[in-house]
């Protein structure tokens, strides 16, 4: 039952998504591309691009998008988006009365000493997983990657501007 699978997948993504949108990417990719094949890796990359240019968190955007493409129905979007938010609800409502204590809790802080460096690895995994032949079709792709990396990392070019420039470059060189 696809609606149940969507619910479970996005509930897991919401439950284990630590460290912000980019760190959630390998989790989403694992469920949506590898396990269930609801979209190709190329489509997944496209939706990351679209997410960068539209409002809202990538977790919500991917849930809404995948929910629709997997079922061809608005209900798929509703269920996936609801499922990705649900763990947050449960957890926040459990700790909301004692969140100040939670913040200074030594065990929580200990766990985060391991989790924080791991989120860097999660983001790296997302980048590595997307470096495949679907996204890098020829030597020009590599040049675009290097230029885009330098421009965002060192010249602090805004991500939206970066994507727009890449789009223009694509029209010219392909």
């Amino acid at each position, binding site marked *: 039952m696809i609606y149940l699978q969507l619910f479970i997948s996005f509930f897991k993504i919401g439950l284990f998504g630590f460290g912000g949108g980019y760190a959630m990417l390998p989790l989403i990719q694992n469920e949506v591309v590898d396990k269930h094949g609801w979209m190709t890796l190329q489509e997944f990359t496209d939706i990351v*691009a*679209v997410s*960068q240019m*539209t409002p809202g968190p990538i977790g919500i955007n991917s849930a809404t*998008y995948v929910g629709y493409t997997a079922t061809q129905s608005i209900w798929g979007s509703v269920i996936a988006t609801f499922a990705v938010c649900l763990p947050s609800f449960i*957890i926040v409502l459990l700790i909301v009365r004692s969140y100040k204590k939670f913040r200074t809790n030594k065990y929580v802080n200990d766990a985060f000493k391991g989790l924080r460096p791991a989120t860097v690895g999660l983001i790296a995994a997302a980048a590595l997983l997307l470096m495949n032949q679907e*996204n890098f079709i020829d030597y020009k792709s590599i040049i675009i990657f290097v230029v885009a990396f330098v421009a965002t990392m060192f010249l602090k070019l805004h991500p939206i501007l970066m994507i727009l420039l890449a789009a223009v470059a694509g029209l010219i060189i392909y």
Partner: protein
Amino acid sequence: MNLYWQIFFVFAKIGTFTIGGGYAMLPLIQREVVDRKQWISKDDFVDMIAVSQTVPGILAVNIAIFTGHKLKNNTGSIVATLGAVLPSFLIILAIAMFFRQFMDNIWVQKMFNAIRPAVVALIAVPVFTTAKTVGVNIKTIIIPIASAFLIWYWGVSPIYIILIAGLGGLIYGIIERR
């Protein structure tokens, strides 16, 4: 205006005008919720952000749940989350309905051929910036390297990596305090 509607509209505004996700949303959330509406004090807001980053899930959603709860308990949480989620939900739904047709266009394909490697670069950049903010050093650098490699090369589920990293930190902390 009824407080529920106010909560809804404030978060809908935040959801509509922040492109690029949670961290980009923080200044706008602060301006609306702390400075303009004065629903929460600055100190409480700082605490809330810290806890919202500690619990799993989408940062903006966590903050919406917290703020909503502070104002109107559980119903407040639901209203705030609906407000935060609805704008991107509607936009992405519209895109999802037409994206495949849109992708059939030859010019769109040309654009996306170049956009894809650029997006990979956009994801590669925060690997280094996050490593810096998190304070990865020569002692801890093995953690991100091992995690990335396990996921990418051996196809280990990121869920296991998160569980192991959290447990590892916990055990390390307990041993260290002995």
